[in-house]
């Protein structure tokens, strides 16, 4: 302020004053940053720094690179790269397999998400009290979450194998006929969805249990005094109280279902006749299995990213609106 007011000062003095002021400002900023980082609040950044670095290396940079590569034709080693412009996008929207994979992904999502979101909520309500039995059930439900998709895929392949599967054999022995779980174009997508739900059901249930346990007990007492039975308590007290958790699970499961890959890769690999080929499975096959078209695979990844981002943003806004 002094400098601005000192219009009659020689120019060299004015400039020097400005420089000194800038240096002082910079010094102040650095000092403030240092001070902030030394504070209890600021030191938290040191703890999240490793995660941020990993996030940048393994998520942010690949994301930016894949956006860039979507406009190129590139092989696996990235040494034969040519500009493709929007050609890859045009190709994607006229690629029958890609469009089919989007359809399969949507069907899978429509099957998995409602069961995950609502089913897990119902189960969570049943096992929310901290009894010994409930704790045991929680552990059982959570067990598949910690198993690898490879183990789960192999296990279910063995159990539901069309000819040598234990479950198939048991059904046949009971006179229910021979069900070809993995080789029926109308049935297999349901089987894959079931395996996926079985695998990740536990995590949704546990999140709900935590949310239910945090509901104020006085609300239940008031409802009970009003004569509400357990079901009515669940509908009128529990469900409204855990709405933020509901939206969170809906959002994460939706994003997860749209990216389904591992279970399909391990069980059906997209078959029979592409009826379980999800978008990510197809992207993987374009990138690594056959033609190694990294550019085209990136294009499809970008399209999927836009779909998932749109869905997530819409749900996130809805969630925030609910909370507000």
């Amino acid at each position: 302020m002094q400098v601005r007011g000192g219009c009659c000062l020689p120019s060299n003095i004015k400039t020097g004053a400005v420089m000194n002021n800038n240096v002082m400002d910079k010094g102040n900023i650095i000092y403030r940053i240092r001070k902030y980082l030394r504070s209890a609040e600021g030191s938290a950044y040191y703890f999240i720094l490793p995660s941020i670095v990993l996030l940048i290396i393994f998520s942010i940079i690949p994301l930016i690179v894949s956006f860039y590569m979507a406009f190129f034709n590139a092989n696996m080693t990235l040494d034969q790269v040519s500009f493709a412009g929007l050609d890859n996008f045009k190709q994607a929207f006229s690629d029958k397999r890609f469009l089919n994979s989007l359809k399969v992904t949507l069907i899978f999502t429509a099957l998995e998400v409602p069961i995950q979101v609502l089913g897990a909520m119902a189960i969570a309500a049943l096992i929310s009290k901290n009894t010994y039995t409930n704790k045991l059930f929680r552990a059982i439900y959570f067990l598949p979450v910690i198993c690898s998709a490879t183990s789960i895929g192999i296990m279910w392949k063995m159990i539901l194998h069309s000819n040598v599967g234990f479950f198939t054999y048991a059904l046949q022995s009971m006179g229910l006929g021979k069900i070809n779980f993995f080789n029926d174009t109308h049935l297999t997508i349901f089987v894959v969805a079931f395996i996926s739900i079985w695998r990740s059901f536990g995590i949704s249930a546990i999140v709900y249990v935590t949310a239910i346990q945090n509901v104020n007990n006085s609300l239940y007492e008031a409802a009970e005094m009003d004569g509400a039975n357990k079901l009515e308590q669940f509908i009128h007290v529990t469900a409204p109280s855990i709405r933020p958790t509901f939206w969170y699970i809906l959002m994460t499961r939706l994003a997860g279902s749209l990216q389904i890959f591992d279970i399909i890769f391990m069980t059906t690999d997209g078959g029979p006749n592409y009826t379980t080929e999800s978008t990510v499975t197809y992207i993987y096959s374009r990138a690594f299995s056959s033609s190694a078209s990294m550019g085209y695979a990136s294009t499809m990844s970008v399209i999927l990213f836009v779909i998932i981002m749109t869905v997530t943003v819409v749900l996130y806004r809805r969630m925030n609106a609910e909370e507000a």
Partner: protein
Amino acid sequence: MKKKIISTILAVAMTTSLLAGCGSSASTPAQDTSAVADTDAEVEAKADTNANAAESTADSTESTDAVEAETSEPITIKFWNGFTGSDGDQLVELVDRFNSENEYGITVDMDITSSLDEELSSAFAAGEGPALLLSSSAYRFTYGQYMQDISDIFDKTGLDKSDFIQSYLDYCSEDDSLYLVPFQIVSFYLYWNKDLFEAAGLDPEKGPTTWDEYLEYAKKITDSSKNVYGSGLCYGYNYQMAHTIQRFGGLAVTKDSSGKWQANFDSNSGYADFVNTYKQLVDAGDNPLTDDTDSMMTAGQLGMTINGPWLTGGMDTAGINYGISTIPTGAAGNMNSCEVLGFSVTTVASDAEKLAAYRFIEWWNTMDANGTCPALEWSVTNGYPAYMKSLMETDAYKSNEKVMSMTNTDTSAPSDFIVDASFPGINAIINDVLPQLVQPVLFDETKAETALGECQKLADDIVAQYNN
């Protein structure tokens, strides 16, 4: 202040050393390649100066090169492959043996990885990677620019080119350049369950030799009350489909008279015959509609199936009494539908590393005083047919019933796998086109001709990429 200066100096030193490291690794292939080129030029120049004694001069020059490289300090070469199975243990054992036996001071530093493709692509992109690579010859379509022409291996080592079956060498070659030296011939074979044959009143020692016999046997073996099927064709097993389809209708991509690639799906009566035969087997209940026949074969529920040699491990463990033969010949005639795995030397290798790799390949294929060699041991232990005529003549090979039944004694039979051996788009044909031939017919009641028309369009798109 002093601390700051010291830490600044240290940081600069570390950054400089990092950059130096990057620089040297990135420039290595180019330098090495030029080194190889210089050496070759020297050899040629020396040979030219003494035209009358060209052969002896070349020999002496080569041996001088070899001696120069081999009398230098001990050398370590990186060797990458994807043999993660039980055969990988044998590979480790053999490499260890070479490291302890060889007189050249060569150490082969082997890395077996289950993600060879991913590791190679990132390593090559960074100018790094192994000097010696063991892979399918199809890798030359992806990493061809990183593979050296190794056709001089027969001049620089004691290996006899005429001892190798020519069609396998052709499989690994492009024009006059050899990119891989065969290591393993991977084909698919017909396996049959002898006990089920016997139960069906068939000769358990003799598998079908024609597809008509195959259908007839399948019908006799099938027993739905016991969940037993005569035939084990598997729509989800693209490689099985490819090997079988080839027997019916020949190669899916060949060169036309003008030297351009052409796809051969449309109106291919052999291919139509195959899918109709498969559908007929499924509809008759003689073939299960499944994407996994391995489990059924090892469970004793399949009379016949077509698979690679790795199936025998599971059947041996399960105690299945089985026979092996080559896949019945179809309308396409006698052929070796096979893939050739081989050793290749990458552009990452220096001149000395290349020679060291040659020595390892030579050792692998050279008989010792006991009349055996790693190639023979590998062949009879793991059940892969030999790629050298001399191996087929050994008692150890002849007495091995398994490898003998896999061996096509007609060494003049062409070796291609579903497409002409030099067509780079083989993976796309196998993984993207063939399933669209078989699965719509099996699941959607699509006519074979319609499916073939769709496949022709898909294959035309793939072929067009390599005709430009």
